[in-house]
């Protein structure tokens, strides 16, 4: 079926986490007969194993739905899924750019949350037609009227809302009709030169990189010579088609359509999300707006537990990178940990995902150092350096100023919890910006906060202080100077570079103390006393001692004990193999995360 632009609707689903986005997508796929119910894997769009387990969408996906309305008129509805986590907000924005409309899904019991708002604003920035869907109306606590009032308060006409229960399949027909009626069809120039937006890409071992594209102007044919405008590299299209939801080959993609193509591209970095595809000869002069190179915000050292596995780790990272353009890595050497890599991530979730994939798919046993943000160091004499590793800071060169990344954070919480939420922001060096009340029982707070302060446990803290009611969203807004110092940790009187961290001067003593206490808990006792110290520039701020082990012997060892006790000892020895030896001290892997867990 050739897509006349009038018969095409491109839309996405945006929602706060757990408001039922994936279930709704499943129902739409089912209702249009794109996939028979019996073939439905629960939540087909979340296809990565990890995504299934975590219940979140990491990579965007697209699926084409063929919808026949009553009376026989046929439409091509392209559902473009979006990642659901703040770590991936750039990817979200590219997916939105490929659409003309958005289903804004709101849980009928929970109401408007931080990500609802953040996603709504993003969608409005992209000029999308918004169709509010009040979902989960089957829940006993559902309160659609309250949600309607909240919609009103955030500037959306509550009369346009569709009531649905994706779980029970109610309201699905109304949603499909609303998409056809209210989402504008694409209006690209069919005769113009090709401009296609890459809104996602993935690596396929047989075909190379598969780009997910939205054709904004012109058409794309099998065998065409194309160029990716960010890198300038040219390729020949070897394969193209649409997702239904399985890739289905076609000869061409026309203006306004959504689909995929492969062109022997070796690495997802060469076909980055947000890039523009045009023809190799006489192509478009201007790329589509909005492209941004991937900027990792959080950095951590990844080291193989066994030094001999260094090359395996490098190969694993290279392979992961084929499919993850936002992951960066560079070789790094640590006095404590030997050879490893300093890796850049979009956020902590991204780090955890990469770590899990390395452990699961590549059987790596890793030591991960505490994540750090990027600091800009102004040394005396006008030298400016950006450091991704606190150990790289060189105080001896004379520091004039350190800048750190800041975010603008939006916290939405019931009014009764605004006090604790503000207190937390204050503790984390937040600068209050605004407070709004979209409804009498809800407040929206905005704060400027250092990224380093919210990276670790801020959200967990926010949740626990508001009994789980608050939600959070944030966006990077740039760098600001701060009175920052590096805290060094000394184990048995030697600095362990992998444990250094940068904090505000006022917090150096308390955080140093917390790290020392944590280390005393996780490092097993040795045959001698081991002092642990936290110091700034040689001045000791905190000290703990791991007392020497005095007794490690079983009192009884008779006939029946011998096998059991030998095995026990052998197992203990096996456990020690996983420890790192720093000087004379045996240190378990979790010690390197002590900096991260200092707030626990």
């Amino acid at each position, binding site marked *: 079926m050739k897509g006349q632009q009038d018969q095409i609707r491109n839309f996405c689903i945006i929602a706060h986490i757990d408001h039922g986005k994936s279930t709704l997508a499943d129902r739409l796929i089912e209702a249009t007969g794109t996939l028979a119910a019996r073939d439905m894997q629960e939540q087909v769009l979340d296809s990565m194993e990890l995504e299934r387990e975590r219940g979140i969408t990491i990579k965007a996906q697209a699926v084409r739905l063929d919808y026949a309305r009553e009376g026989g008129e046929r439409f091509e509805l392209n559902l473009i899924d979006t990642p659901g986590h703040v770590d991936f907000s750039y990817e979200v924005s590219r997916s939105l750019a490929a659409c003309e409309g958005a289903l804004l899904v709101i849980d009928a019991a929970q109401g408007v949350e931080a990500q609802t708002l953040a996603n709504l604003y993003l969608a409005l920035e992209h000029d999308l037609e918004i169709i509010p869907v009040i979902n989960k109306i089957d829940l006993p606590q559902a309160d659609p009227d309250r949600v309607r009032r909240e919609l009103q308060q955030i500037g959306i006409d509550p009369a346009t809302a569709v009531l649905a229960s994706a779980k029970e399949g109610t309201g699905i027909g109304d949603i499909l009709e609303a998409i056809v009626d209210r989402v504008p069809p694409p209006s690209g120039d069919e005769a113009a030169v090709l401009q296609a937006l890459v809104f996602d890409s993935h690596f396929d071992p047989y075909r190379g990189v598969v780009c997910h594209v939205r054709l904004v102007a012109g058409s794309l044919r099998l065998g065409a010579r194309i160029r990716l405008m960010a890198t300038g590299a040219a390729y020949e299209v070897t394969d193209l088609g649409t997702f239904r939801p399985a890739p289905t080959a076609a000869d061409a993609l026309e203006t306004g359509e959504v689909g995929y193509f492969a062109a022997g591209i070796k690495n997802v970095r060469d076909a980055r999300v947000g890039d523009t595809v045009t023809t190799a000869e006489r192509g478009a002069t201007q790329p589509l707006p909005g492209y941004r190179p991937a900027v990792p915000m959080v950095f951590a050292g990844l080291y193989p537990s066994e030094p001999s596995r260094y090359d395996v780790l490098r190969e694993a990272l290279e392979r992961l990178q084929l499919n993850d353009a936002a992951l960066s890595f560079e070789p790094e050497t640590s006095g404590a940990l030997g050879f490893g890599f300093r890796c850049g991530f979009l956020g902590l979730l991204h780090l955890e995902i990469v770590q899990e994939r390395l452990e699961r798919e590549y059987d790596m046993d890793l030591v991960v150092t505490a994540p750090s943000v990027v600091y800009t160091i102004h040394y005396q004499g006008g030298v400016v350096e950006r450091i991704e590793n606190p150990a790289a800071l060189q105080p001896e060169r004379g520091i004039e100023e350190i800048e750190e990344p800041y975010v603008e954070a939006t916290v939405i919480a019931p009014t009764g919890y605004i006090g604790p939420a503000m207190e937390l922001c204050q503790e984390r060096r937040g600068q209050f910006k605004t407070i709004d009340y979209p409804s009498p029982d809800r407040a929206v707070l905005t704060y400027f906060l250092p990224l380093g302060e919210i990276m670790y446990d801020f959200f967990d803290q926010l949740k626990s202080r508001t009994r789980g009611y608050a939600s959070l969203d944030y966006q990077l807004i740039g760098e600001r100077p701060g009175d920052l110092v590096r805290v060094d940790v000394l184990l048995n009187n030697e600095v362990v570079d992998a444990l250094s961290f940068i904090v505000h001067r006022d917090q150096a003593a308390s955080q140093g103390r917390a790290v020392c206490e944590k280390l005393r808990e996780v490092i097993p006792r040795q045959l001698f006393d081991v002092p642990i110290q936290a110091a700034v520039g040689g001045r000791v701020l905190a000290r703990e001692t791991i007392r020497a082990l005095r007794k490690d012997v079983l009192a009884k060892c008779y*006939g*029946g004990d011998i*096998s059991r006790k030998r095995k026990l000892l052998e197992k203990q020895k096996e456990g020690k193999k996983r420890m790192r030896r720093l000087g004379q001290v045996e240190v378990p892997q979790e010690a390197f995360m002590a900096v991260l867990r200092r707030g626990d």
Partner: protein
Amino acid sequence: MTEPFGAYVHLPYCPYKCHYCDFNAYRLPRAEGARADMAQAIASEIAQAPGLDASRRVTSIFFGGGTPSLFRPGEIRAIIEALRSRYDVSSAAEVTLECNPGTVDLSSLRALRRAGVNRLSIGAQSFSAETLRRIGRLHTPEETRDAVRAARAAGFNNISLDVIYGLPGEAPEDSLRSVQEAISLGIEHLSAYALELESGTLFGRLAARGELPLPQEEDVVRAGDLVAQACERAGLARYEVSNFARSGRRARHNMLYWHQGSYRGFGPGAHSHLFGRRFWNVSPPGEYLRRVAAGGEAVEDEEVLSPTAQMGEWVYLRLRLSEGFSLASFARRFGRPLDAAYPGVRETLCAQGLLEAVPLWVRPTPKGRWLLHRVAEPFLA
């Protein structure tokens, strides 16, 4: 001289279970014939046990439990008889029976002596009435003293007492007092164990919840050192981590274990070691009785040690002994020098002050004995 060979007999019943005990022990069933059935099954297991060990000369027999003194002397005698018909039991064999104060009297001890038992190991545990109550023992210190006096009267000249130190609420001086009381009874042998918390016991559960007033590690070490000094002063020399004896009165049967010697175990959960193969019986008494009734043996599983595992085990067990071992004995046993099998290990341990820096010999320092598992670790597989 023939190589020593031991027979271990496990009698799994107790009148009650102590708070710290994780042995294969069960409350004595109410059914009248329970003990007789068990004794009979063990005799039958002995009679039918397959294996190449029938011709071996048994140099020691050990009745452990449980509380073997709960069994009637006639039942013990029957088991010894079964061993005599199956093996060549040396007339000089050490025959030990574990007993608890309050479960023996002069007449039962006389009967046991006549049955062939020549060594008693009495579970004193403590000489503080309050401590005994706290750890779940049903006897009093006076009953322990009575038991020792009765044993002497019955003709026993080889008596050992068990005591535990580092008990909840105990200061090192309290432990020392208990041991001094034990010594004052003129015994030939003493086993003094630091309390160990096992997960399946009441104490283990209480400790996990932080509800047991356990002494600090330094105090346990100090208690152990005080105990050892008191023993040495009284002529009871330490020969193993937890064992002290007058000259010539070391527990011969237990020495077998630490020498990685051969022994055959009978009864529920009993372990055997023959020709580098370790195997053990099923533990629950009911299952054991069924297995023996059905086929005459009750082996649950076995473990055949690799040469490396055997070597590590040998070193670990020898290091438990105060005398340690000679480099020559290791080379004789494993066909190569210790320093070739474990390059650099001895040197490091000496430098750490865990092994005595003496020529031709390997033995733990006092510090090394307290940290024996650190010492043994590099030798293990």
